């Protein structure tokens, strides 16, 4: 049976992709950020998962306002990256896992999640930056397979934090009911606090992010006290992306151990976080 080993929460700021492309990891600006990934690389190297379920948001590459899904799941054999209009060089395509994709879609729709299925899908920096971050030594033939889970945080209304946590739980159940022996990891990306638009552009909230990270392993329901409008005020309208980390957390179930955590301001306009959680039962 498939087994979910753990989850990683990580920011997906485009500037990171740039830093990796230009080998800036040891620069004073970047070093405090990349250092947080060392435990993640060790863990992924030790566990060698077969499939990654990558929860992220599209920023206007694959989806437009004419067809804006709340939750979209990829079911393609391969996912292509493409020009987003402001300079990042598109990466090579990423291999998918269609049978597990379809199992997820079937299980989630049966559990009454209203999924948009995508049999062909472009993946933007929200997806490619975490892939480059977690698997820096990319060897195409030995590459991990990925399943994109794309969440609407572009057109309000976004899904509620509660809905995200429950989706995560349903994903966890779906993985456990998949018959093939596969080791799976789940990534929840985006955030943490930041604001790109409005007079308040550049806003961050260290205290709120810190409490979010503190509570994530043992008390994820803590975030549910806030509706998305309140989250926008506390963490910036783009900081609301932290609800995607709840999808990752929900999938891991009740018994979770925090293995590492890092937090650093600033990466571009963003308060960047990373957390590594292992499923213990």
């Amino acid at each position: 049976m498939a087994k979910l080993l753990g989850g990683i929460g990580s920011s997906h700021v485009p500037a990171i992709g740039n830093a990796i492309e230009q080998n800036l990891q040891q620069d004073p600006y970047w070093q405090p950020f990349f250092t947080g990934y060392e435990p993640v690389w060790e863990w992924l190297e030790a566990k060698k998962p077969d499939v990654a379920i990558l929860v992220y948001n599209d920023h206007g590459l694959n989806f437009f306002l004419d067809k804006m899904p709340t939750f979209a799941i990829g079911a393609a054999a391969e996912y292509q990256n493409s020009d987003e209009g402001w300079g990042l060089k598109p990466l090579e395509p990423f291999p998918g896992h269609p049978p597990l994709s379809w199992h997820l879609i079937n299980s989630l729709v049966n559990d009454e999640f209203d999924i948009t299925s995508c049999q062909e899908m472009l993946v933007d920096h929200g997806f490619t930056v975490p892939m480059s971050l977690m698997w820096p030594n990319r060897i195409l033939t030995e590459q991990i397979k990925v399943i994109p889970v794309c969440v609407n945080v572009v057109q309000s209304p976004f899904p509620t934090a509660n809905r995200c946590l429950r989706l995560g739980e349903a994903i966890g159940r779906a993985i456990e009911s998949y018959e093939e022996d596969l080791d799976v990891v789940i990534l929840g990306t985006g955030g943490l606090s930041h604001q790109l638009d409005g007079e308040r552009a550049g806003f961050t909230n260290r205290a709120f992010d810190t409490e979010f990270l503190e509570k994530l392993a043992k008390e994820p329901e803590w975030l549910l006290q806030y509706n998305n409008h309140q989250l926008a005020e506390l963490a910036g309208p783009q900081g609301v992306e932290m609800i995607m980390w709840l999808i990752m957390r929900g999938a891991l179930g009740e018994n979770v151990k925090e293995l590492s955590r890092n937090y650093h301001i600033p990466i571009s306009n963003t308060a960047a976080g990373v957390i590594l959680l292992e499923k213990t039962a």
Partner: protein
Amino acid sequence: MTEFRKDEPISGTLIFDGNMAMKGYALNKMCFSFNSAENRDAFKANEDAYCDQYEITDAQRAAVKSRDVLELLKLGGNIYYLAKLTGMFGLNMQDIGAQQSGVSLDEFKAKLLAAGEK
């Protein structure tokens, strides 16, 4: 549930909800087209002709011309599509962050670095 309509305004922040979306659809559709290099080139070659294709309002056209992000947001632009417009002219998220918050790029970066010191 209508509670969302009673939301208190957030200082310096415009939430991109249905009301804003209704205003800005054509503007956002035009900016979404800038994913394509060919379209970006066509826009740079003749902005007015390109805007004509999308039937944006005169106010939106003027704000596009002046690359005024705050104004574009008020007229219904969504930041992720607007970023493709400004990105075409070499302005990244920090450049437009500085513009919107009314400071120089150096001040904007310094403010963020200071938030990192705490």
